[in-house]
């Protein structure tokens, strides 16, 4: 999966799994802050998203500061998934 495709897949996952009704996945910007920002997501959503990423991409999402760095944006998540799956 190329990086842009991966980011799109993650955006679709966010909208579906976090029940963001009426939100167009592509309207989520690659670098926009995911939590505490315009999407209205909080730490319960972060946990749900981490579980979903583990299921969908067969990765193990770390916790704590490392997780905060990954979950900063869609790009952060995509880079993490690509790195773990590529490595």
């Amino acid at each position, binding site marked *: 999966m190329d990086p842009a495709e991966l980011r799109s897949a993650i955006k679709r996952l966010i909208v579906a799994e976090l029940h963001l009704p009426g939100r167009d996945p592509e309207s989520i910007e690659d670098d926009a802050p995911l939590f505490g920002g315009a999407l209205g997501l909080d730490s319960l959503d972060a*946990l*749900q998203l981490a579980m979903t990423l583990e299921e969908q991409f067969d990765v193990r999402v770390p916790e704590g500061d490392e997780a905060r760095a990954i979950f900063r944006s869609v790009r952060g998540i995509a880079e993490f998934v690509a790195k773990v799956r590529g490595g």
Partner: protein
Amino acid sequence: MTVRLWVTGLGLVTPLGHGVEATWERLVRGDRAIGPVTLFEAANQRTTLAAEVAGVVVPGPGWSRSSAMAAEAAGEAMRAAGVDVRRARVGLVVGGTTGGMFETERLLAHLHEEPDCRESLVEMLSHPLTATGDRVEEVLGPFVRVRTLASACSSGANALVVAATWLRAGEVDVVVAGASDGLCRLTHTGFNALAALDPEGCRPFDRRRRGTTLGEGAGFAVLERAESARARGATPVAELAGWAVGCEAHHITHPAPDGSIVAALVERAIARAGLTPRDVDYVSAHGTGTVHNDAMEAQALRRALGAEVHRIPVSSSKGQIGHTLGAAGSIEAVVTALVVSRRTLVPTAGLDEPDPAFGLVHVPHVGRPASRVRVAISNAFGFGGMDTVLVLTDATGDTGARATSAPVASRAVVVTGAAILAPCGLLGDEACARLVDAPAPALAPGPVDPDPYLDPGRARRLDRASRLGVVAAQHALAGAALEDDEAAIVLGSAFGSVDASAAFVHRIFARGPRSASPAEFPNLVPSAQVGHASIYLGLHGPAFATADLATAGESAFVQAVQLVRGGESSSALAGAVELRSDIVERVLAALFSGASRPGLQRVDLAAVVVVEGEQAARSRGARILARVRQTLEWRGKEGPPADLVAPPGDACEVVVARGSTGVDELLEGTPWARCPRLACAPALGESDGLGAAALAVAASRIGHGRTRQVLVLGLAPGRGYAIVLSPP
């Protein structure tokens, strides 16, 4: 007449031991009962620590660890108080959230996987929340009434509040009140998924705290009016001097960070006891050890207690016995009663480095005697922001001029709104009044779609049951034109979210604990729908769920009326939400419905009515549908008590959930036997929530002039309710 409430007996089963003395000795010593989980496979979890109770004897089929611990603790409390159920009117209030989940979760996962499975029915006898109260009644009853309630982790504290309202109303002489929760895979996995468990064990108020540790246990207290307790020669352990119950209406799992709601509840509870922060000597904190709870609670205590917070010792037993979930509020109330009666403070174990941001006075590691502990606070907070604060005092002294001991002016209660959401549509009171008039419409049990009535952004966390409940509640509120953000809400359900719980545990068994959904877990707590409704509707009053098999709707209504009648809230939403469920239809209904219910298809149903104090309703110019003339509830096979009021001549009706032979037998020989009988099931479909629909129909029929007086009769095996509504 003044009413003071004595606690005359205590009972405990905790991870530290069986019985009050075994627990107390080890609590004061600072022993910790936290270790690796042995009850079930907990590998691959964030933490495998828990606080288990050793040596729980589960007597047989129909019993669970929860009910066994409940019977043990309630029995100890009743023996200590010298309660004789044959010589007094004794009520039972049981809180809890897990019921027989531990015993039935493997079977649930199997039922989810193989929907046609019909075996092993008897194992499900222990499953419902009501099984706990039913087993306690079998061994310790008979009780004149039994309430099963859940408000997540404040369930046990709210059991004591319900007991207090019953006693203040003079409806019973003695109440055995408490809660019990056993550990299970579902809660352990769910709290792990929420990253709410500390891998190193619970360390309340510690700078390094990373979460709680789950525990299990039961705590029960016997409460009675001081006057009648004194008359029978009982001695008090402590006095329940004040309480306050409310909702944060903020978030399903996170506490509101500023602690303002909790602070207000602490202030109200103290004031209600006729006291001030200067009188408070000790706080038994909710103190879960999660980052957010402890910060919020410390902030709330600073706000409510002011400068006194620098003097008042605060501790949490969760570092020793874990977070016993639904039982925590009653176990900690029992411990708090012991603290004031024995003038000894219990410690916070695991607290090595107090968080300097909190500014609290701690009792680290070991307990200690205190020169003065006459007034103590016990906090209990639950998912959905359902918070309860109790004030327990030394009963031998005169510690305050109680607002609770003021004469109880029983308020007249009226119904001002009603709504039903079912496959036939969203019905307001006008449609409810017509519902049972017409010949039964050909039912097209299509899907019920609540979403057009909801704000999608605010509703995104709501499960389907919560959506149905919220839509019915807001329609009933709109009909009543009521805007009261202090309204209470009580919703009943026979079996809760059993299908969703089955799907959740199936996933854990099939794919491992890391596949557990943190967003879904909070929706499986029995009070989730009430919590979501309070958040969505912005209600800050008391909120809890009731369960009572197919009379859950009636139990919720009667409970709400009792809250309003006793002045605990000025208005309340009351009803039931039930989803059509494979597991209920194939397994639980056959076990628990008693009479067969042929023919009708089960449907999704939510029904809610609005009840208010009559004076408040009149002063705001509300349109009143009906007055609540009488509410009766009973246990056993007998019918309504002899004091069931008679209908005033003609033009009265009996409204029931469904026609059944039991109704004829019960009404035989009473004047109600001559009244026309209207059943809701033919018009709405089959549901265990039909009792709430019957109440909505009954109030609406009176309000729209279709009848004069209505008896709503609700029956389930071993229990019944009779509610008489009359014109305003």
